[in-house]
């Protein structure tokens, strides 16, 4: 099973500097946040699908299709009971749904799906190494970035070890398919103990290997990969910043909200 979302393509998005992509995705998160009218958030969501197509990230959208659909459905059902609007549609005891709260619910579902879509575009076009390098160049302290990148590399190893442990325990008779949530939770212990010991044993070996090579968390470092912001990076950031400012300006001018106070 491939747990990575990165898609090895050669699009304009893939070639952008990781710093541009990190700042860019934060600006993209801001767009659906500016509105709570489903027409406006829907337009942002469609724009993100178009961006996804341009970045050749649609295979990951398809991979996450059930999640994206569930996000919209769940929010659309849940929110109308918590947000209050002036035009009642239906009520039963303390429960009340208004036209505005229903639209608000749909907008929140689209907002959540838009966040996931923006994140998917980022993850589809950025390798883990680029992501880490970008964070370091954005002044994340090196020891933190080192721990982050080491964890990213260890996840597939531990996931593989976990799968082997599951097979071993199932072959010894552990039944993972039956029981309620609590019983299943307890059955996780025979899997967690060997995984934990296997993983933690790595710690001393890895620390010795690093120290024997002169690793020092606080030392000044130089980099093999040299990141450089190009003209395309500045264009991308300028376009996204303009869109973000325009979205905020629209909202402040009274557009894009079915419930203005939310």
């Amino acid at each position, binding site marked *: 099973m491939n747990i990575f979302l990165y898609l090895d393509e050669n699009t304009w998005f893939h070639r952008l500097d990781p710093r541009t992509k990190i700042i860019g995705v934060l600006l993209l998160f801001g767009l659906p946040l500016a509105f709570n009218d489903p027409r406006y958030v829907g337009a942002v969501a469609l724009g993100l699908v178009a961006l996804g197509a341009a970045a050749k990230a649609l295979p990951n959208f398809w991979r996450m299709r059930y999640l994206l659909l569930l996000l919209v459905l769940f929010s659309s059902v849940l929110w109308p009971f918590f947000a209050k609007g002036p035009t009642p549609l239906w009520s039963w005891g303390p429960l009340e749904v208004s036209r505005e709260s229903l639209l608000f619910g749909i907008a929140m579902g689209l907002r*959540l799906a838009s966040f996931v879509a923006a994140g998917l575009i980022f993850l589809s076009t950025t390798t883990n190494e680029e992501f880490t390098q970008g964070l370091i160049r954005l002044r994340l302290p090196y020891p933190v970035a080192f721990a982050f990148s080491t964890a990213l590399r260890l996840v597939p190893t531990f996931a593989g070890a976990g799968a082997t442990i599951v097979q071993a325990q199932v072959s010894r008779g552990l039944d993972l398919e039956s029981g309620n949530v*609590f019983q299943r939770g307890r059955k996780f212990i025979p899997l967690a103990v060997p995984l934990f010991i296997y993983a933690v044993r790595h710690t001393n070996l890895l620390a010795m290997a690093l120290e024997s090579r002169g690793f020092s968390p606080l030392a000044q470092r130089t980099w093999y990969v040299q990141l450089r912001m190009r003209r395309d990076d500045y264009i991308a950031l300028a376009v996204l910043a303009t869109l973000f400012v325009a979205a905020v300006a629209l909202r402040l001018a009274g557009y894009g909200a079915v419930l203005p106070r939310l």
Partner: protein
Amino acid sequence: MTAVLTMWKNTRMIILVAVCAAIYAAALIAFKTAIPLIPGITEVRVANIFPMVFSLLFGPAAAWGTAIGNLIGDIFGGTLGLGSIFGFVGNFLLGYLPYAMWTTLKPLANGERAITFAGWRFPVLYAVLAFVSSAACGVVIAMWLQVLGLVPYQVLSTIITVNDTVASLIGVLLLLAVYGVVQKQLRLLWWEVMDPADIGQPIAGTVGAWLVVVGAVAGWILGAYLFTGQALIIGIVATVIILVGSALL
């Protein structure tokens, strides 16, 4: 709180951050789609048996490891978004509070970092900290997601609190199984790995611990059940109290 910052000078602690993050993320990814509670936001988190165990064994490395692990879980699970910011903070607290309050929540705590399994103190303190750290995590994350307009505070604070408390309580079985190995064979208990000078002392440990208890419990119960109309304000105030209390530990 000092140890949370000074631990980055220690290579073993940095590796422990990575290992904790990787185990937590691997378990989160494995069970991400198993039983979703709020799609894209949270699920039945079997992986949450780990943070409290990590915390009592690896201290500050567990706090960072749990936070980074949750972020990686979001990255691999495809749910990276603005919610991940306070997911990071909430999970940091889930890994930070148990070890920091283990010695400071007096009179329940006796001030000893080493765990003595015999007697009444261990089960009581463990259960209280499982609940308080879960509620603190729930309040902080639910407040932020309500600010973003993603999920109502009342719903999410309850789901996270109950979910994490149950998982942390199940995690005691893991702790019982691995404590001796980590202490005697691997010698990786955090206060033995770190230089004593780097560990430091709490600013006002007992005050901080009780502030966290009040913020977490009141924030959850008042916001989710008693004053639901003011849930967001209660969530914000409770989050501030929890963060101030945490800083004092």
